[in-house]
């Protein structure tokens, strides 16, 4: 079971690298002021994002199970069903730790410079 799990992670990692390389080519309108985080298989992807002040981040839930995006005192999405999105614009520098209030083991970080 453990072996299988580790293999899954390495597959995910491989896909992430591929996506990162493809991103500038496939999303022509993507720029520094709009960034995306996807929820896939109960994981925020990418789990950490470095952005500039003024950047808008959009989270999209691609799971069959609802999730939320919550950063204590900073922002809180409503419940995101499959394919629902949540958007937040970061106007202050700082580290924003966030999590899913339904599945608190799901955590992520936005670093705003």
């Amino acid at each position: 079971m453990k072996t299988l799990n580790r293999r899954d992670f390495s597959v995910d990692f491989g896909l992430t690298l591929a996506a990162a390389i493809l991103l500038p080519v496939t999303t022509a309108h993507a720029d520094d002021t709009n960034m995306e985080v996807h929820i896939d298989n109960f994981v925020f992807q990418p789990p950490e994002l470095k952005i500039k002040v003024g950047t808008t981040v959009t989270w999209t839930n691609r799971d069959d199970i609802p999730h939320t995006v919550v950063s204590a005192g900073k922002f809180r999405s409503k419940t995101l069903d499959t394919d629902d999105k949540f958007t937040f614009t970061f106007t202050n520098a700082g580290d924003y730790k966030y999590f899913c209030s339904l599945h608190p083991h799901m955590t992520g970080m936005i670093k705003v410079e």
Partner: protein
Amino acid sequence: MSGHDHGDHGLSRRKVLECMTWAGTGVLWTITGGVPRSLGIIDSAQAATAAAPGMTFLQISDSHVGFDKPANPNALGTLEEAVNKINAMPAKPSFMIHTGDITHLSKAAEFDNADRIISQSKLDVHYVPGEHDFLDEEVKFYRERYGRGTKGAGWYSFDAGGVHFIGLVNVVDLKAGGLGNLGAEQLSWLEDDLRGKSKSTPVVLFAHIPLWTVYPEWGWGTEDGGRALEYVKGFGSVTVLNGHIHQVMQKVEGNVTFHTARSTAFPQPAPGAASSPGPMKVEDAKLRSMLGVASINFKQNEQRLAIIDTPLQG
């Protein structure tokens, strides 16, 4: 593997594997002095309960009414099948416990539909909420329907057939990186509730998320569940029922028996067997063998609890 509690206490690995294998057909368990003993698969088990005097109650869980994704496009339909199965039981149980996730998105219509189907069982139902039942903005739909007479976020206790039942809520105020949570207020209520109770009173605790640590990597456990278990430690017979993980799992530790019920909506993978705990897509023909209800037979004076898992389809 050793980091997780997978029933190593008093339950051999082989026994666990047998339990997993039989999960598709249903097993009658009797627990005598904290040691589980299986009496056989579902047909003989049902005959045995029908003949056995004593109190019987049912557990149903994770109906996810409103769920319509490929793992089960009709969660309401399989809930109705489960209720039909209950209505066809040879002996009518005394009441039913629902261990949460009645709905998928806490919508009023989902609660209406769930209620319409579950009420066809004509049984008293004691609910505790799952995290999916607390998704509405004001978190009021669950409480308005099921919260009457409960404390805090919906915890309560009642007595039936000489057994003290305690419904707990561990799906609110979850902390980043954490597991399920009972909270200080509920724990002190629990301590009070048990105070003065004779240690020979059998206790049944039920909550949505497992009170024991099943698999923390997927959030399958309760941060302060150990505190609740401390309070019931001195009691002769303790049974802990939960849902949330959509599969049968059982563990015995001293006088405490932990048991997880199936979902009536969709199966989830065994701990670590997939990249996430999300709904598991199985062949249509196999789906119903992985959904079901549990009935628990309590024989008074014998401190014996028989748990029967009934899949929707053998």
